[in-house]
């Protein structure tokens, strides 16, 4: 029986429990998190740090708290593991209140990673990672196996790294070990406060990608704090934008946040290039393509030109014997090169290709090399416009 899925509170809420305490499950357990009318006011201040914050994070999602400094995003995160105590409202973990659990016990079941990492300088990497398993009383063999598993999971060599002290690690390695330590006891919820903040941009991108790859396997519920809207868009399944006083400005998936900002504040925060940011999230396959007006070499072009006009395209698409697009057939009969795109190409890159190609239309190819349809700047525009209207 796993203690983390049976919190100290009453066991009345098992129906909402997404965890599977018994038997193997394809994914390790994750918890639902719900903030209900949460508020925080520090004594001696006239304005609350958090004002009536309500949001729900489905199990297995990354929820990013983002906003300018002083918006209360870190405070909101630290309320969840009772590093800061609530003034009002409640926070439910898998349906039961965190108020009913002793803070230290609660925290052992919630992963915790912070910007400054906070590795213990006097302990080896292995001992650092073993922190929470030891607090939970795991036996030695289980801890040793888990430590090596985690070091490998974060892409380091257990033999090389296990016995090193934090002072002997590079910045990127230390950040990885910090994440491994947070994951050590397989917690159903992970709190991360700017975990990749103190790192150069290239390493930071690598760490973000690695974490997303990990999350793909682990499917933890994650609360991720950042001040960087680009990181929020990249990492988040859902993004909560907070403004000063811990007021929730908008809580939405990244695409919706970009295309339908709730107010001026959110629009200003996501920036002037919201559409381009949205395209960075999308794939070619999401856009409604136009049918490809194909023509084989040697066929009379008149009918194909007709079909091209009907589809709103300037030229027919010349294909080879196998049906693979080879060129656009201009009106004078000369050929123009055709841009090939895969359906899983990122839309932003596809648009870049379109803008730079001679004919601003591209053939989207299936796995067999044949055309699935034609992508145009206009089609991308229609895609964005449909999202703006919702």
């Amino acid at each position, binding site marked *: 029986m796993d203690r983390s899925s049976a919190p100290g509170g009453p066991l009345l809420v098992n129906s909402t429990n997404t965890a599977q305490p018994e038997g193997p499950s394809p994914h390790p357990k994750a918890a639902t998190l719900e903030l209900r009318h949460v508020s925080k006011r520090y004594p001696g201040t006239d304005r609350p740090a958090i004002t009536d914050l309500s949001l729900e994070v489905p199990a297995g999602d990354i929820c990013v708290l983002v906003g300018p400094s002083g918006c209360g995003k870190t405070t909101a995160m630290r309320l969840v593991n009772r*590093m800061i105590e609530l003034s009002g409202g409640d926070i439910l973990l898998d349906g039961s209140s965190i108020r009913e659990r002793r803070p230290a016990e609660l*925290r052992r079941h919630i992963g915790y990673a912070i910007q*400054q990492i*906070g*590795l213990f*300088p*006097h302990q080896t990497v292995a001992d650092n990672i073993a922190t929470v398993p030891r607090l939970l009383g795991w036996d030695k063999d289980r801890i040793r196996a888990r430590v090596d598993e985690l070091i490998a999971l974060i892409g380091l060599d257990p033999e090389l790294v296990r016995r090193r*002290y934090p002072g002997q690690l590079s910045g990127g390695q230390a950040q990885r070990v910090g994440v491994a*330590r947070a994951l050590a006891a397989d917690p159903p919820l992970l709190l991360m406060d700017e975990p990749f903040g103190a790192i150069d941009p290239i390493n930071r991108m690598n760490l973000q990608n690695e974490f997303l790859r990990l999350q793909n396997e682990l499917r933890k519920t994650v609360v991720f704090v950042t001040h960087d809207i680009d990181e929020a868009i990249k990492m988040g399944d859902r993004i909560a934008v907070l403004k000063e006083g811990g007021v929730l400005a908008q809580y939405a998936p990244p695409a919706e946040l970009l295309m339908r900002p709730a107010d001026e504040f959110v629009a200003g925060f996501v920036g002037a290039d919201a559409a381009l940011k949205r395209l960075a999230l999308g794939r070619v396959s999401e856009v409604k393509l136009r049918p490809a007006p194909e023509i084989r070499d040697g066929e009379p072009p008149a009918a194909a030109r007709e079909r091209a006009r009907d589809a709103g395209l300037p030229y027919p698409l010349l294909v080879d014997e196998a049906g693979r697009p080879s060129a656009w057939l201009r009106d004078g009969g000369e050929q123009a090169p055709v841009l090939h795109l895969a359906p899983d190409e990122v839309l932003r890159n596809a648009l870049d290709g379109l803008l730079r190609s001679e004919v601003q239309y591209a053939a989207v190819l299936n796995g067999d090399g044949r055309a699935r349809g034609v992508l145009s700047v206009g089609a991308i525009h229609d895609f964005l416009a449909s999202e703006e209207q919702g």
Partner: protein
Amino acid sequence: MITILAQAGGSFFRHRSNKPSCVEDNGICPSWAIHHLDRYWPRLWEHVQLVLISTVIGFAIAFALALLAHRRRWLVPPITNVTGILYTIPSVAAFFLLLPITGRGTLTAVIALASYTLLIFFRNIIDGLDGVPAEAVDAGRGMGFTDRQLLWRVELPLAIPTILAGLRIALTTTVGLAALAFFAGAGGLGEALNSQKEFQTNVIVAGGMCVVLAAVLDASVLLGQRLLTPWSKARSPA
């Protein structure tokens, strides 16, 4: 100074030509020292006991005070002030002040010597705990350490270098101050020194033992620190 050197030089030459006259002339007499070492061992042992007992008691009290003040910061200034006053009382005065209460003997000396170490220990323990990286404490708390676990597993281990630096100062200082403990009737190397303070060889042997004792204690703390803090030298740009 020159006359002393001249005397020493003179006695050296006479010592070679006429051995028995070295002691009579109050020279520096290695052979006398070697033959009379036995009389110093009990005094040295007393001295070691005085130093170790006082330091251990002083450390225990300061440690308790520091832990108390660590979570109640307002206690730091008053404790610093009181231990600071104890630190400034001249040791001989402290011995005489205590005599009517505790009488002549080791107890009096130990009380005075231990109270001397309080300020050194207290400040170093507090400084050591304050020097623990805030993010390590935050991470520890966030992972579910209780206050007590945090103190013993994170904060105190990381404060060890600063605490041991204080221990080195306290030990060396106490070795010196314990040489005055004979005023309280507690024996020690000071007693040996005082009993024949006009005899140069005696002064050199007793004083030399103090210096060697201080050096040995200091070196053993340093060695202990190496063993206790393997992480502090394990640094390399990765």
